[in-house]
C-alpha cells in the first residue's frame, strides 16, 4: 500500500491511457475465452475469415453482448461508487450496502410472487426497487445528518437492508416458487443477459452520464467546503440531491441487468483515490475504466473456473472485493473526503 501512495505522482493522463489499454485488452480476452468449446484459436481463425458458424455465434451473440454489458455495469458501479463516496464524504459508502441490492431483491421477490419468473423478469422492476431502496437509506441518512458519519451511514444501510431482507424472507416463506427462483437472482451474473436488457436501461445511464458531466465541477467545488461552494455560486443541496439521484439510477440499472454485484462500487474509487488523490474529477476519470476492468476480469474468471458451468459473478466479486476492502482499511487511514 505504501507503493500506492508513492505512485500518486503518476500523471493522471498516463494512468488513464494505460487503464484504457488494459480495458481494451481485457475486452478482447473476454471475446476469446469462454466456458464452451470455442477456443481462442477458433475465434481468431473465425475473425480471419474461416467459416465457423459456431464460433461466429458464440462470439457475436454470446460473448460480445456480455462484454458490452460488463463494460456498462462496471462503469455504472465504479462511477456511482466514486460519486456516492464523494457526496456523502464517506469513504465506506458502497451502493450495494446502501439498500440498493436489498431494495432490488425485494422488488424482484414481489414481482415473482405476482407471477413473473426469474427468466422473464422485467428490468424496470429491479431498477425501481433499487432506486427506492437507495433513496430510502440516503433519505434516512441525510435526514439526521448521519451522512457525515461513515459507520452510521453503513449501519443505516445495513438496518434498512435487514428490514427489506426480512420482508423478502417473509414473502419467500409463503411462496416456494419465488423462493426457488430468487436463489438464482441474488447471486448476480452477466450470463445470458441480452443487448435488449442493456437497451432497456440505456436511457437512464445516458441521462445520468450527462448529469454527472454537468455536475462534476460543482461537486469538486463542494469538496472545498459548503461555504466555498456557495460562494462560487453553486447550490450544495441541489448538487447533492442530483448526484444521489444519478447514483441510484446507475446502480439501479446495473443491478437490474446483472443482479447484486458486491463491492465493485466500493473498491474501484478506493483504488482510484490511491492513485490520483481525492480530487473528485480525477477519481471519476480513473474509476470509469477501472470499474469495467474489474467486472470483466471477474466475469472471465467466472466462466473458466467451473466450466462447462459458470460461477455467478456476484459471488466472485464478493470473494475478491472483501479482502481488498479489508486490506484497504488495514493498510491506510481512511481518508476523509
Amino acid at each position: 500500500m505504501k507503493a500506492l501512495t508513492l505512485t500518486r505522482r503518476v500523471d493522471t493522463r498516463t494512468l488513464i491511457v494505460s487503464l484504457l489499454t488494459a480495458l481494451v485488452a481485457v475486452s478482447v480476452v473476454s471475446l476469446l475465452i469462454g466456458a464452451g468449446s470455442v477456443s481462442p484459436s477458433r475465434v481468431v481463425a473465425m475473425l480471419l475469415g474461416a467459416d465457423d458458424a459456431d464460433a461466429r455465434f458464440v462470439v457475436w451473440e454470446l460473448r460480445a453482448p456480455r462484454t458490452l454489458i460488463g463494460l456498462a455495469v462496471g462503469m455504472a458501479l465504479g462511477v456511482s461508487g466514486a460519486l456516492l463516496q464523494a457526496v456523502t464524504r464517506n469513504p465506506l459508502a458502497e451502493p450495494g450496502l446502501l439498500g440498493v441490492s436489498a431494495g432490488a431483491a425485494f422488488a424482484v421477490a414481489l414481482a415473482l410472487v405476482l407471477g413473473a419468473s426469474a427468466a422473464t423478469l422485467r428490468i424496470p422492476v429491479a431498477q425501481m426497487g433499487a432506486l427506492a431502496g437507495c433513496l430510502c437509506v440516503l433519505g434516512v441518512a441525510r435526514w439526521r445528518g448521519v451522512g457525515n458519519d461513515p459507520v452510521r451511514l453503513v449501519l443505516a444501510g445495513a438496518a434498512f437492508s435487514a428490514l427489506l431482507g426480512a420482508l423478502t424472507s417473509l414473502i419467500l416463506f409463503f411462496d416456494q416458487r419465488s423462493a426457488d427462483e430468487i436463489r438464482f437472482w441474488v447471486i448476480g451474473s452477466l450470463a445470458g443477459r441480452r443487448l435488449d436488457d442493456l437497451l432497456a436501461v440505456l436511457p437512464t445511464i445516458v441521462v445520468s452520464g450527462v448529469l454527472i458531466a454537468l455536475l462534476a465541477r460543482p461537486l469538486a467545488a463542494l469538496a472545498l467546503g459548503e461555504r466555498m461552494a456557495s460562494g462560487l455560486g453553486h447550490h450544495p443541496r441541489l448538487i447533492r440531491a442530483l448526484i444521489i439521484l444519478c447514483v441510484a439510477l446507475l446502480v439501479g440499472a446495473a443491478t437490474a441487468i446483472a443482479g447484486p454485484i458486491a463491492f465493485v462500487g466500493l473498491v474501484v474509487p478506493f483504488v482510484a483515490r490511491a492513485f490520483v488523490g481525492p480530487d473528485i474529477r480525477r477519481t471519476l476519470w480513473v474509476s470509469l475504466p477501472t470499474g469495467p476492468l474489474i467486472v470483466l476480469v471477474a466475469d472471465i474468471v467466472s466462466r473458466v473456473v467451473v466450466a462447462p458451468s459458470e460461477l455467478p459473478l456476484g459471488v466472485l466479486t464478493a470473494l475478491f472485493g472483501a479482502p481488498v476492502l479489508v486490506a484497504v482499511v488495514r493498510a491506510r487511514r481512511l481518508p476523509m473526503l
Partner: protein
Amino acid sequence: MLRSVLRFGLASVVISGLVANAQAREVNTAFGEVDVPDAPERIVTLYEGALDASLAVGVTPLGAITSRGVDTVADYFGEHTDLSELQIVGVPRETNLEAVLRLEPDLILAPAELPNEQYQLLSRIAPTVVPDTNPLTQDGWREESRFYASVLGKEDEIERVLAELDERAADIKSRIEEAGEGGNAYVVRWMPGGPMIMSSQLFATGVLAATGIEAEDGGLVAEGRPHSDVLSLENLSQIDGDWLFLATLNEDGEQALEAARQSSAFERLNVVQAGHVVPVDGQVWSSTSGPLAANVILDDVEQALLP
C-alpha cells in the same frame, strides 16, 4: 428456574400414554424399529411423497404440510381427495408441532431427511416413520411409496398401483415407438443465465425412462445432486437431444418457454427448431413424489408426444 422445571417435566411425563394402541407391528425405519398401529386411522403426512402414496392406496390423511406452492398441497392431489378436509400442519420449512399434536395422530409419515431434533419430538406424539431410502435414484420413489404403503398396511394395494402404472407406461412406450417419436431427452429448468439440467437419477426422469424416453444429464450433474449448476449458454449443444422438457414452476408453461426463446442460443438448438420442447409442471417434475405424480408425468408425456 425454568431449567429445573424443564427437567422435572421431562422426568414426570409418561409419554407412552399418548400412543394408545395395543395392536402394533414393527417397521424398520431410518431411526430403527418403530411400532406402528395395525390399522392407523389418524395419519399426518409431513412430506409430499407420503401424501401421494397414501392417497394412491386409498388412505386419506388428516393433516399434511403444504407443498412447495403457496398455502395448500399441490393441485394434482385435488383429483384424489377433498383438499378442504386436509388440515395444514405447516410448510416444508417449518412443521408446526402443536398443529400435529392437536390432530392427535396415531401415525406420522415423515420425509427421509427429517432432522433428529424434530424426530425426537414427533415420535413422542405418535409413531413416526422415516424411510431409509435415497431419493436420488430413478426408483427411489417406488421404494418410498412401498415403504409408506406398508406402514399403512397396504402392501397389496401399492403393488397393484405400481403395476398399473408400469402397464400404462409400457402402453405409452409402445405407442411412442409406433409413432417413431422415441429417443433421448433432457429435463431442464431455464434460468436467466442458462439451463439447469435435472439429474437422470430423479423421480421424473425415472418415469420418463419407463416410457422409452431416455432422460440424460450428459454427465453434467454431480453425484448426489438433483440438478446441475447453471450451464453456460456456450455449451447449450450439450442438451440438444430428441426432446427437451422444460420444467417450470409457473402455472403457465408457455411463459417459461417464451422466456427461454428470448435467448438466441436456445433458438439455435435442433430440438427447439424441431418443435420438440415440452413445457411441464416443475412442481411435479422436479420433486420426489409418488404414484399419483407419476401419472401426471405420464399424462404430460402422452399429451406432448402422442397428440
